[in-house]
């Protein structure tokens, strides 16, 4: 029997859910301005969460050391978020409220998120918009000068703020500008092209990191009173994903190996609208924003023989007349239609393709069609909304989705896009309490890196919201509750034996990898890992498949340990070594995902166990047995199975029910 954690460990404040955050702030400990000057905080990562936290902490008076692996903080992968950011402003007068955003997020997460955290997220969402506008983020506006909104999956109101198809870019540049301001003020010291390679614990508290200077290859030591990791998700475990090439889970794995629990790793989001895989040389999958589902209709042929012809390249999508198209999302989910949440849309696409209705040469694609909206709105309006996405699609596939293909019986048919689901976001992450502190004292995790707000599935436009909520409005408060009694400690010296040991451990690991001297490149092993993960730990999981997957993951670890080859030198710029260190962690992460998926004998959100579905093929949750957060604890070695602790969920404000997007 897995151990059940004491509810007090989550540090959820007393009181009704709507008053918890206000109460918390009223009673938390603060750090006086003089003491702030004596306190150092390490922030690893410069995405929305990391940059906003570093900027806010610096501005408050703390001394911040901020690290990123890229050449500039502005490159962090938050920049690639296209669609938008949610907030409960109710500017559209369509009945939105903090409660409704909270409710939609909990429901969208399939009732597996922690209520108190989500309510706080919804509560501060409005501050984020105010903050970003004040920074000069050029959100889309209406002619009267007010902010514009669009709708997104999983909601019946328009609450998404956006900046063309580049919302993540604009929000990140906003946070980057705030960060730059603090660098100029001398409160944040920036370390670019540095990668955290080890967490340093002193007397049971996180007190620093070892980072590898990616230009010189040297290991360097950094100490602080607290460490914040804001290093994103673990989607690249699957090799092919919408993540950037450099995205990795190494910081999270370092924390996990030091004892931080890893929560709900099985909750991986598969985004329904990505450009399908085209070949084995492919390095990443390109996302087409979910906002396309506002005006695009998803379909496959009604007749199997049409699908066969499409797969053989004998006909094109535009050859199939309206009456022979199956708009399966509109058919199955009349109330939400094409705007069902991502997990539902992804599974529905897989279901059609598994039945043989796929529309490209691999049979793994469905159509996203703009004919109806182009006819209704005109190509100019459609291009204004999605022009950059259409161009991007054309550049990659050589097909222009806005182009008139043919007219049948007076109905105009435009080239449809082809899309297929791909790994996109990871809801699971390092376990944190209400204060965003991990199970290790002094170590905090924010943004996608933690597990806290999205439950088993994240709604569109909520990742940006969470990253900025954590970084601007939550962590800078809650970290003070920890730091308030830390100013009595003098600056920690990096000459302490703990730092020397941590550095030696990294050096040994690097030596070990170099000494394998096998024949296989990092990427070739990573591709094999990705293949196993997608095949056995992907969209449709079974007990048998997961057990096979775990076996194959052990083989991959063995292969990595015996056949890896790294050219070049250790103490030098070495991109193969960087990738090898990350791959080691991806393998451990892959196993963790599989263990959790195997344990969770239910289907919920992004986790679908084929044994647990209704007759109609919908996910079947098991609240009686699985209404908990699975927290995995490292057992001292990567090849040992982790142990699970349960954080029971407790809902006070929301009645847990079956997720329904049909009516």
């Amino acid at each position: 029997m897995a151990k059940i954690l004491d509810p007090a460990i989550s540090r959820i404040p007393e009181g009704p859910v709507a008053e918890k955050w206000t109460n918390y702030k009223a009673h938390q400990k603060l750090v006086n301005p003089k003491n702030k000057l004596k306190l150092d905080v390490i922030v690893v990562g410069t995405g929305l969460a990391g940059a906003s936290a570093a900027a806010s902490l610096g501005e408050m008076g703390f001394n911040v050391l901020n690290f990123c692996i890229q050449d500039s903080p502005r490159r962090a992968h938050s920049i690639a978020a296209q669609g938008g950011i949610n907030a409960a402003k109710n500017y559209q007068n369509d009945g939105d409220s903090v409660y409704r955003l909270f409710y939609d997020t909990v429901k969208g997460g399939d009732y597996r998120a922690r209520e108190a955290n989500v309510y706080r997220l919804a509560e501060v969402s409005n501050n984020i918009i105010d903050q970003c506008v004040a920074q000069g983020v050029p959100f889309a506006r209406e002619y009267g000068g007010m902010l514009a909104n669009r709708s997104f999956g999983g909601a019946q109101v328009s609450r998404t703020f956006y900046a063309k198809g580049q919302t993540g870019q604009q929000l990140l540049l906003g946070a980057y500008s705030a960060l730059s301001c603090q660098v100029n003020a001398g409160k944040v010291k920036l370390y670019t092209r540095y990668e955290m390679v080890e967490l340093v614990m002193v007397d049971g508290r996180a007190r620093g990191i070892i980072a590898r200077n990616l230009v010189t290859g040297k290991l360097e030591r950094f100490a602080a009173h607290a460490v914040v990791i804001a290093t994103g998700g673990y989607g690249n475990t699957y090799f092919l994903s919408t993540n950037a090439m450099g995205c990795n889970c190494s910081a999270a794995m370092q924390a996990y190996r030091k004892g931080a629990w890893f929560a709900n790793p099985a909750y991986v989001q598969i985004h329904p609208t990505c450009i399908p895989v085209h070949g084995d040389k492919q390095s990443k999958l390109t996302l087409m924003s979910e906002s396309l589902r506002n005006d695009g209709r998803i379909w496959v042929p009604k007749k199997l023989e049409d699908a066969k012809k499409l797969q053989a390249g004998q006909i094109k999508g535009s050859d199939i007349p309206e009456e022979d198209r199956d708009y399966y999302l509109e058919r199955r989910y009349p109330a939400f239609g094409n705007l069902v949440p991502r997990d539902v849309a992804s599974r529905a696409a897989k279901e059609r393709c598994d039945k043989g209705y796929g529309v490209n040469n691999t049979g793994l694609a469905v159509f996203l069609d703009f004919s109806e909206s182009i006819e209704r709105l005109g190509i100019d309006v459609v291009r204004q909304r999605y022009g950059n996405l259409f161009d991007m699609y054309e550049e990659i596939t050589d097909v222009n989705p806005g182009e008139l293909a043919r007219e049948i019986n007076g109905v105009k048919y435009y080239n449809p896009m082809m899309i297929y689901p791909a790994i996109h976001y990871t809801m699971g992450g390092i376990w944190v309490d209400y204060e965003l502190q991990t199970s290790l004292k002094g170590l905090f995790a924010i943004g996608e890196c933690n597990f806290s707000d999205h439950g088993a599935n994240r709604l569109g436009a909520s990742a940006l919201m969470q990253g900025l909520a954590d970084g601007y409005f939550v962590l800078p408060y809650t970290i003070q509750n920890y730091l308030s009694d830390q100013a009595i400690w003098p600056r920690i010296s990096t000459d302490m034996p703990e730092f020397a040991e941590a550095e030696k451990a990294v050096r040994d690991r690097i030596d070990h990898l170099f000494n394998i001297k096998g024949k296989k490149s990092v990427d070739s092993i990573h591709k094999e890992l990705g293949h196993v993960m997608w095949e056995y730990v992907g969209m449709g999981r079974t007990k048998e498949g997961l057990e096979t997957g775990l076996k194959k993951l052990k083989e991959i670890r063995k292969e990595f340990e015996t056949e890896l080859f790294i050219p070049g030198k250790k103490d030098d710029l070495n991109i193969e070594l960087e990738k090898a260190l990350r791959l080691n962690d991806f393998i451990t992460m892959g196993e963790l995902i599989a263990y959790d998926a195997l344990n969770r004998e239910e289907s919920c959100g992004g986790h679908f166990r084929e044994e647990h579905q209704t007759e109609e093929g919908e996910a079947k949750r098991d609240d009686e047995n699985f209404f908990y957060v699975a927290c995995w604890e490292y057992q001292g070695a990567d090849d040992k199975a982790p142990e699970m602790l349960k954080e029971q969920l407790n809902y006070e404000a929301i009645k847990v029910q079956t997720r329904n997007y049909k009516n």
Partner: protein
Amino acid sequence: MANISFTIKFWRQNGPKDKGHFDTREMKDIPDDTSFLEMLDILNEQLVAEGKEPFVFDHDCREGICGMCSLYINGTPHGKTASGATTCQLYMRRFKNGDVITVEPWRSAGFPVIRDCMVDRSAFDKIMQAGGYVTVRTGQPQDANAILIPKQDADEAMDCASCIGCGACVAACKNGSAMLFVSSKVSQLALLPQGRPEAAKRAKAMIAKMDELGFGNCTNTRACEAVCPKCETIANIARLNREFICAKLAD
């Protein structure tokens, strides 16, 4: 889909002080729906298989938005893509069988080479730190809709804000000027009411920092806007000049 074969000449340089040279390699049967960077991945797989060090270049998101990729391909920053696009959005179908493809780093005094085609663009961060922001405290500013901004101004500011900081403008400029980069940020914030209070200070500080870091002046050759993957225009530079002159006159 077809396969193509071609010759690639790629720049190797061991550090800022190394003289550097081209390596040449025949690439055979590369599918033309491969992206340019995926083609370089194939090249690197081959090099590593031969026990050699891989060709180093910056890249990350591979969807044209992070601004990390920065290759000078056949004499053009980011190569000749269809619309404004970055290196990562260049596909091999734009090349022909038998082509010779030359790959070089951004070459500019402001961007020293780190290794091969990886250059140091931290100067851009320093210019931003000099003033590329609105000074605003995290907290509770007024309601977002309390600042009304005409749609046209917001759209124009958004176009200026689209700059990804890749540095193609500097690489294309015979003077190695960073004016398009600087002017895009100055324009974005100058067009918005939130940015006005610090507009004069910002223009002066960012230009001073740019000069200090060794970037050249603008002589209106428009090479920068021709290669900008995000279609920033030199109208921004005109606006920057206006802001700068007004600021200087006010002094």
